């Protein structure tokens, strides 16, 4: 069923999850969390990470019943052919939409921080061409690159450590200023930068080994990313006073802007270049998930033939999202569809499959 050269190890699955989760959210997350949770924003991230863990278990339990099928394979088996295929298309749409949102935000940040005069289409094309180059490869190649590029996360942590020169820990106190209600509510906000773990729905059959190990790998990936996000949010919170935070929408970049080493004047640009790397990986991950589905329906399982027109769709999606009103709409749509497709539906499907005793071979 799955060609040997597309198989990946559990370690690679972990890095795949990591790379899909780190996206554009990381830059703006501290700003958003401070708005609602005040100094306890970092606790919200931990709570969100915990919630993601629960969702991962649900997804895993669902996938485990069909060990040799991707989501596109087992949906028709659970719900019947017509409804199943319809749901498959909705999932493809969701993946594409997620990729489009990431791409739009990516272009926003780069356009605001570095390439001020470069038109948006040029930024998008540059990003998409790179993504295309990777996304058309088989899964093993993608996973290998993800493993290597995870090194950039370590460098990002190291760079953020510079910020502690100016840290003032009293900025996060009193921790429960916003109240636990708000802290948990902002965990909801923190959930979206963490999306990407749903890759497990598509990747599950490609991974070697037993199901327990796969869960472990996915959970470990999620844990690392939750910790990474918590660290970055905490860093931003101790560096920017509560009064400044509302004014700074990308605190991580902003704090690095004022630092300079002997030979490098603008560390924020270095950070941004690493971030570009990580973001395009996240996009590749979404594109891969979508194209696997498209490939199954239209190209007899060859996902690479679906890549070129997928890229075009993403380009259009990201070109539309230029005004704040549209991006806000995108955000809302992502939230709703995330809850529907990644939390709600899998839970229903799981119950359904459980009671109907449906199992794959």
């Amino acid at each position, binding site marked *: 069923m799955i060609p040997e050269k597309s198989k990946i190890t559990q370690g690679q699955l972990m890095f795949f999850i990591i790379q899909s989760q780190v996206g554009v959210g990381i830059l703006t997350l501290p700003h958003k969390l401070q708005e609602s949770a005040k100094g306890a924003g970092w606790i919200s991230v931990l709570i969100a990470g915990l919630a993601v863990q629960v969702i991962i278990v649900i997804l895993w339990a669902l996938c485990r019943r069909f060990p040799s099928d991707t989501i596109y394979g087992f949906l028709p088996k659970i719900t019947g052919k017509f409804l199943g295929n319809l749901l498959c298309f909705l999932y493809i749409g969701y993946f594409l939409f997620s990729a489009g949102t990431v791409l739009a935000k990516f272009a926003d940040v780069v356009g*605001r*921080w*570095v*390439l*001020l*005069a*470069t*038109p948006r289409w*040029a930024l998008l*094309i*540059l990003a998409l061409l790179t993504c295309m180059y990777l996304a058309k490869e088989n899964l093993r190649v993608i996973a290998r690159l993800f493993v290597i590029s995870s090194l950039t996360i370590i460098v990002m942590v190291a760079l953020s450590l510079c910020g502690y020169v*100016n840290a*003032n820990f*009293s*900025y*996060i*106190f*009193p921790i429960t*200023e916003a109240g636990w209600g708000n802290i948990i509510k902002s965990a909801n906000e923190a959930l979206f930068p963490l999306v990407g773990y749903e890759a497990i729905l598509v990747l599950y059959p490609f991974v070697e080994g037993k199901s327990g190990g796969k869960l472990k790998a996915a959970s470990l990936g999620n844990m690392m990313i939750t910790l990474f996000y918590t660290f970055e949010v905490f860093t931003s919170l101790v*560096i*920017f*006073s*509560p*009064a*400044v935070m509302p*004014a700074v929408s990308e605190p991580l970049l902003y*704090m690095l*802007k*004022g*630092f*300079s080493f002997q030979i490098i*004047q603008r560390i924020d640009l270095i950070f941004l270049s690493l971030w570009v790397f990580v973001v395009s990986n996240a996009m590749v991950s979404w594109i891969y998930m979508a194209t696997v589905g498209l490939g199954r329906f239209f190209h007899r399982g060859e996902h690479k033939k679906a890549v070129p027109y997928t890229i075009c769709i993403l380009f259009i999606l990201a070109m539309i999202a230029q005004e704040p009103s549209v991006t806000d709409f995108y955000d809302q749509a992502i939230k709703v569809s995330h809850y529907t497709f990644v939390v709600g539906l899998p839970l229903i499907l799981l119950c359904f499959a459980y009671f109907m005793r449906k199992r794959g071979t």
Partner: protein
Amino acid sequence: MKRICFLCVMMSLLLFIAGCWDQDLLKDARLIYGGGYDPAPNGKLRVTFVIRDVPSGEQQSPKNDIITTEGDTPRDARDHADDQVSRHIRTYKNRFILIGEELAKQDIYPVLEVFYRDPKSSLNARIGVAQGTAEDILSLKKVGNVLIAEEIDELIKSKEETTTVPKVTLEKIYPVMLDPGEDFVLPYLMEQGARVNVSRIAMFHNNKFTGTLSSEESTMYLLLKGRKGKVTRFTQNMSTKGEMSTTEENPQIRYDFLTFNVDKLKQKMKVKVQSGDQITVHLKLKMKVSVIEYPKDRLEKKQVVAELNKDLSKKMTDLAQKTLDHMQKARCDGLGIGRQLMAFHPRVWKKQKEEWGSNYQKVHFAPVVQVEITKQGIIN
């Protein structure tokens, strides 16, 4: 064939998209190395830019060009300056911002806002307050053989190392500037002869310049804040006969002074709130110092050292008290007492935040400085 076509198209495409829009060549730019801001009589800003010119010949040394313009905002003034200067003015390499005393007495945030908003500005530029006008200091053009922009930048930098002025860049004061619970301080630049003197601190309250600390007090403030630089030297008069000033009254006066360097510093600050919302701040400084000059006594006797420790501790405690008094008079909450209240006594802060400026003046400070001589150079 298909592949070759594709490659050709790609190549030509890449040729066209290689950084055309955002390229900004150094040869088309005039770099601003520093800027001075003063109020103009008609409510406008008077801005003085130091522009660095590097002549094309290798033998010639770089030169500074000073240009002064007026405008409604800093950016407006910069645009006016651009009208008078060939090529484009660029601020990537801006190294310092000088604010004239009179302008600093008004709110300085609107003057600095453009630097925070512009993605291309250099946030690591130093910032200081100029006695008189910034224009006067920048108009010196050269101090000795050094160009004014370098001189100011390097001077402030070296004074940061000697714990005379705080390490302040545009970025560092940004979180403090908007925070109601803390005030910032800046280096205070004075023109002296044809030179620039940086030895004092300008205090701010609510982003407004409210007073200066003397050079000794400035160092003391930095120690109280726990920001010791590489070198921290104090000279104290150890005379037992009181402060007699002339050699005629006290022929031994040259023998009375002791200079020491603070080697190690431990600083502790505790904010306590007693009943009736009386705020008491306990400040504890423990210093290990080395004696640098002291002509009077030999320091081999333990008793002498103990005596000196006691005297110095008392003198330094007095100095700390004096420093804090001056800061309270200027309403400058440079130690972030409000910040501490906000974080650890939120209820008290809620009551006091409306009138924090005057409430701060009622805070009771209890500084204790302990000095311990641990080194004495290579003679006893």
